């Protein structure tokens, strides 16, 4: 069986990579910051948006096919 990603347009793959970096660094910073740090809320907003964008990608991929 051929993996789905071979059919995926390269731009989508890149988009996923970029968003993964956004989410990944949020995770790292959240791990560094103390639990009562006020900046956590902002970081969580960035992370949430990044993850939401990632979640859209399978749908976009299927519409492009």
């Amino acid at each position, binding site marked *: 069986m051929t993996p789905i990603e071979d059919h995926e347009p390269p731009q989508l793959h890149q988009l996923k990579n970029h968003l993964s*970096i956004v989410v990944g660094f949020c995770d790292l910073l959240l*791990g560094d910051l103390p639990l009562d740090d006020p900046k956590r809320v902002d970081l969580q907003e960035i992370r949430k948006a990044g993850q939401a964008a990632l979640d859209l990608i399978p749908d976009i991929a299927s519409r492009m096919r």
Partner: protein
Amino acid sequence: MGDPAPRLLVVDDEPGILTLVQRFAEAEGFEVILRPGGYHLLEELSGLNPDAAVIDRNMPEVGGLELLKAIRESDPGCQVILMTAEATVESAIEAVKLGALDYLSKPLDFDRLRELLGGVRYGIARRQRLLAADTELAHRFEFYGMVGRGPVMQELFDLIRRLAPHARTALITGETGTGKELVARALHKLGPRKDRKFIAFNCSALVETLAESELFGHVRGAFTGAIESKAGLFEQSDGATLFLDEIGELPLPIQAKLLRVIEYGEVQRVGATDSRKVDVRLIAATNRRLPQEVAAGRFRQDLYYRLNVVEIALAALRERRDDIPYLTAAFVQEFSSRFQKRVSGLSPGAERLLNNAPWTGNIRELRNVIERACMLSDGRILSEREVLAALGGTRPAAGTAPTESASPELDEIMPEVDRNAIEQALQQVGGNRSAAARKLGISRRALYRRLDAFGLR
């Protein structure tokens, strides 16, 4: 010296991912090497020596799966974790089948990655503890420089302990590299002459015409060039221990004179009319089978009977493979510290190779192999690849199990020596392999390999 950090190789064509994994892994105590991928990474791979690798599956030029295969082949001890933006069940199964430790989708699950890296660290620590335990055992079972835990060696040590105080002459037999000189030294150290000299001499190093003078001395004018009188080895060893290695190589006339020394304790210098009394403890050694040499008329029977009153036969390493881990551990420790390397363990594949090798050169060969492997290594764990290179073997062909014995390409080693030449040389020297190797101008190891390949052993 503290334990150095385990080394993690991270490969991704996306720089942001590289930095991300680097930040995480360094916080986890890893030394991190970053690479953007590409063909040249394949060439560079063997020099990087990572303990683990995190690799992107989708990369231009060289894909993650291809890189995974290359790493699994060159260094099976390195654990590989694949990352992908789009994980499917099929691609995950494929990766794991190829030997990946795990398959992570992006965005990375850092808890899972932490677990995986923890596993890698634990694995390294376990290999180190194993070697440390073997080294300790090796020390506990050491006997005058010999290491042996198995029953064969324990009996040998016991025999040496019992014989050493009494035996005036002894014969040590065993293949090359089994430790004949160490046994001789132990006999000396445990004997009544431990505070006197131990003189070791290799009979095969003797030029036949000078052998007599070397062993028994000469008087002034005994032959051309004998400007001064000179005491031979026996006189120098008076009151002490003389170790004659490769006694089977002695020419027959010298054997007769040697017998006289042993029987009467009298030495006659070359050209002298009178003889002198000497009191020498003689330990002889040979890798020849003396009864056969006697039957073939190359060794005096009376001398053989004189020598073999006390005979100590040493086992070949392949007959006591149980001791290989302890010997290995002792040698790794020795050479790791001598070369100031940080080697503190062996990969399971490397252990298998050592346990299964034919060891025709016995412990000396094992020691040389470990020495070379330690020299080649810049990692913490001796890998299969390093041991294989040290064994003089070529890389096993793709698809074959790495545990299969690595028989080197013969033509690469010595293209000019063929079967006939070896047979002839062996016949000319009466089957003595050391002498045959010298005649052929190749190392003894090379000769053994050749003999194995031609089925002449």
